[in-house]
């Protein structure tokens, strides 16, 4: 299957270090938050791209395999991404499991590919960019726990929901990057 990506790079048939070199160049053309899909047949590229992403500061989301072809998903992050959290209604990630038992909805606002490679069971997926057009899918009479990767996108979404008439909205911090519980995949 193919997951949604903003840019696709075909590195099939290339040997190390070419998939890395091509990925580096392709990544320069993305804006922060966009997702790059890298097609490769080099079996070492999975470990290499994960290590490369970590070293350079991007988010390696995961890899799917389709026969000999691997599809790697990487989300572009910028190094100066530390922004003050502004929405003041927050729930700590480690309290989320208990809170959610009392009802409410976990709203995962990461991109489709990030959600597919691992999300909290029962979490509803609406990528941040689709919030405006899909807001009616979110019930107004329930508590909403907004989660993303680090707490940054969810902060923006929580603010948006609160100002759109949702009465009980919480930003979950930090985010899935620190989640140690079970995850569901949808690949």
């Amino acid at each position, binding site marked *: 299957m193919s997951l949604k990506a903003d840019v696709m790079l075909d590195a099939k048939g290339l040997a190390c270090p070419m998939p890395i070199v091509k990925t*580096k160049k392709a990544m320069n053309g993305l804006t922060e938050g966009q997702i790059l899909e890298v097609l490769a047949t080099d079996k070492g590229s999975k470990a*290499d791209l994960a290590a490369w992403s970590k070293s350079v500061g991007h988010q390696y989301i995961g890899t799917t395999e389709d026969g000999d072809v691997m599809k790697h998903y990487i989300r572009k992050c910028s190094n100066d991404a530390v922004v003050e959290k502004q929405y003041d209604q927050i729930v700590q990630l480690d309290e989320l499991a208990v809170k959610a038992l009392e009802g409410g909805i976990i709203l995962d606002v990461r991109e489709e590919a990030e959600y597919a490679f691992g999300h909290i069971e029962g979490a509803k997926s609406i990528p941040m960019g689709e919030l405006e057009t899909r807001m009616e899918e979110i019930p107004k009479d329930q508590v909403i726990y907004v989660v993303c990767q680090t707490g940054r996108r969810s902060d923006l979404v929580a603010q948006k929901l609160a100002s759109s008439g949702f009465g009980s909205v919480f930003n979950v911090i930090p985010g899935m990057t620190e989640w140690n519980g079970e995850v569901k995949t949808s690949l």
Partner: protein
Amino acid sequence: MTNKVAIIASNGGLFDAYKVYNIATAAAATDKEVTIFFTFEGLNLIHKQGMQALPMPEGREAIAEGFAKANVPSIPELAAMSQELGVKFIACQMTMDVMGLTVEDFVDGIEVGGAVTFLEFAKDAAPTLTF
């Protein structure tokens, strides 16, 4: 943490060239500042003619087929790619003098320097690699 990778290329075979340029391009693509110091037979790796036909280790000629099959870039391609990614090439002045070579014998864009030039760069590099 240091962001530098220092490489000494002192051998002139085809395998040596791949080791040097693969690590160099991978490091440069990972936003490292990379310098290669070419000395003794390592100068083959940037020699305009020499780099076109670097020798295989004896008895391993069959591997040439493997290189073609794996779609590995040629050494001149890897050298150009390294430079494009910002890898700095330093040719060893002393070895050039001994071998009667001048800057014109090498690919464009190289610097010529002595051991101290490299040591100055490598003093806070991690890792420093020798091939």
